[in-house]
């Protein structure tokens, strides 16, 4: 599904290398988690994959089902099936949440050569999916993320994911700013989307999200590289001992 080879990335505005050769291979239906200390390059990886400005790829490749992601515009990557749930979802005053969702869904359908959804059909689907995430009609009417609580913003991200039905989902610190109940709700939303054809990359600082979204593979990232890969037990090791042991061990 997602294949990253020797990916090296530096900042556009200063000569600082953030990713120093990342290799990652996620098979269809698998859930991978990336953990790592602050500044290890986890979020940068998610931005570079989704096409945010400000980064320069100096070496390596990233493909989604064999298609080169890095040469595509962000909207093309989305249409190809990539989705990033933002760590800090963006507020867009003046754009209604519903308008935003419908514009996005129909833009992707158009890019894939499908017919646009009618307003009625769209409404039906969105209401059903919103309900399971406890997103009420009021939240759908309000401008995108404006005045939303931290939990509402993250649930809104998962709603977008559910509506867009991507095949590769990247969750960037989706647990940050969430209380236990909100985290459970978000995790349930994610788990409901798990399927054979859909893969996940879950970026997190803490093991607790992984109690709810069970990963198949856990990677530890430090200083722009994946330094260790293992099963779910690796996350527990981090939870119990911190990163220090692993960093020393690898060094």
């Amino acid at each position: 599904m997602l294949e990253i080879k020797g990916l090296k990335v530096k900042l556009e505005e200063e000569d600082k290398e953030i990713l120093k050769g990342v290799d990652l291979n996620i098979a269809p239906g698998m859930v991978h988690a990336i953990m790592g200390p602050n500044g290890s390059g986890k979020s940068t990886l998610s931005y570079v994959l989704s096409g945010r400005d400000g980064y320069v790829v100096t070496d390596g490749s990233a493909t989604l089902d064999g298609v080169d992601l890095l040469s595509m515009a962000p909207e093309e990557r989305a249409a190809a099936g990539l989705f990033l749930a933002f760590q800090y979802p963006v507020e867009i005053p003046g754009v209604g949440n519903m308008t935003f969702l419908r514009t996005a869904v129909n833009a992707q359908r158009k890019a894939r050569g499908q017919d646009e959804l009618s307003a009625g059909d769209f409404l039906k689907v969105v209401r059903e999916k919103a309900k399971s995430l406890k997103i009420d009609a009021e939240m759908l009417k309000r401008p995108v993320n404006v005045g939303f609580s931290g939990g509402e913003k993250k649930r809104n991200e998962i709603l977008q994911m559910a509506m867009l039905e991507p095949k590769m989902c990247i969750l960037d610190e989706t647990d940050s700013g969430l209380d236990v109940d909100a985290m459970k709700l978000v995790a349930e939303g994610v788990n409901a989307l798990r399927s054979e054809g859909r893969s996940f990359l879950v970026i997190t600082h803490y093991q607790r999200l992984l109690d709810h979204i069970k990963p198949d593979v856990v990677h530890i990232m430090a200083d722009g590289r994946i330094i260790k890969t293992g099963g779910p037990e690796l996350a527990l090791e981090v939870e119990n001992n911190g990163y220090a042991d692993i960093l020393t061990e690898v060094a």
Partner: protein
Amino acid sequence: MALAKLKQDTTAARLADVTLPTGAAWANAARADALARVRAMGLPTRRDEYWKFTDPTSLTAVDAPAAALFDTDEAPLFDAVDRVKIVFVDGILDAAASDDLTVEGVVIERLADVMAADIHWARDIYGVLETCGQKPVERALAALNTAMATDGVVIHATAKAAKPINLIYLHSDPASDVVLHNLVKVDAGAEVTLLETGPAAARFSKCLEVDVAEGGAFHHVRVQGRDHERRAVTHCFARISAQSTFKSFTLTFNGVLTRNECVIDIVGDDATAHVAGACVGDGHDFHHDDTVFVTHDALRGESRQVFKKVLRNGAVGVFQGKILVKQGAQKTDGYQISQSLLLDDDSQFLAKPELEIYADDVACSHGSTTGAIDETALYYLRSRGVPADQARNLLTLAFLAESLEEIADPALANDLRDRLESWLARHR
């Protein structure tokens, strides 16, 4: 005090060939008075402080610069709205093209007829509100309009008008130089909506005087037409009584030069006055100026000024807005915001927000911002699959949304939103 040489010359040249139209005695007096005031004030020049950001030369020139006619295949605005259409072609009312003027709740007359009538309520408003609006800032072009105007409509709302009145200003002669003057009187508890659409002329001078009695409501939605080369100077003078409502919204597309002045006097307690505008301009010859003056002279008045401009390819936007709160106008709630979205580095927004307050228990705020498209929001939209152009348009419309919300009727607002969308789709 003698006028400056430039002002003197400009005024003398402009007035040299002006002969006042004649009508009833009161009308002749109003026109003569207006002309005398123009002579005393002198026409504006670019040295005037009030015209610092907008060059009035082409508005005061003897001959109007020609403006090519603009072909459009768009359906007329507000086509789906049940309304009374009054059509002006190059400033002359075209009765054959207009609807029957009988509407429940309002009396509509033609200015030409009213100015010939010996007895008419119009004498208490025509040029009267305009004269009041000349202090503390002179608006000589409005006085010139009062002196010269022969056509327009005179609307008297006696109850809730059954439908909106749409003045449609068509432009058919590339050299047309048009002066129109409209009056609106809203009786106590009455309500009327005035729609104005169309480019009107190569050069258009329009004055609107509105008197709203206690508990009355006046709604105004205007779209200034898309002719690229047209010039317009418009004035609105409103007097708002107790518990009354005044709401005006203007959408401007294209045009070389547009100066819209709106002068509102809140003279009765608990009155509401909102004036808003959105403009979209493309190209270095686009110049749009909103100049607003709201005076609070009563208790608990609420006023809002909301102006948004989208500018690209060297377009220039100007906002001069003032809230004056007089002594004793306690509990005034005044708000003013002017914002521009500059889509490139060549475009310019010039703002002069002012507050002048002589009462000590008021809430007044004003703000002005200039910015580009929010790159983070753009990335967010694109990451959800929305193509860059479409995402930019969505954000541009979102920027304008606050001003469109000032339109009370959602059907009218939707019509304008659609127009904006198609304008943006054409200007990429």
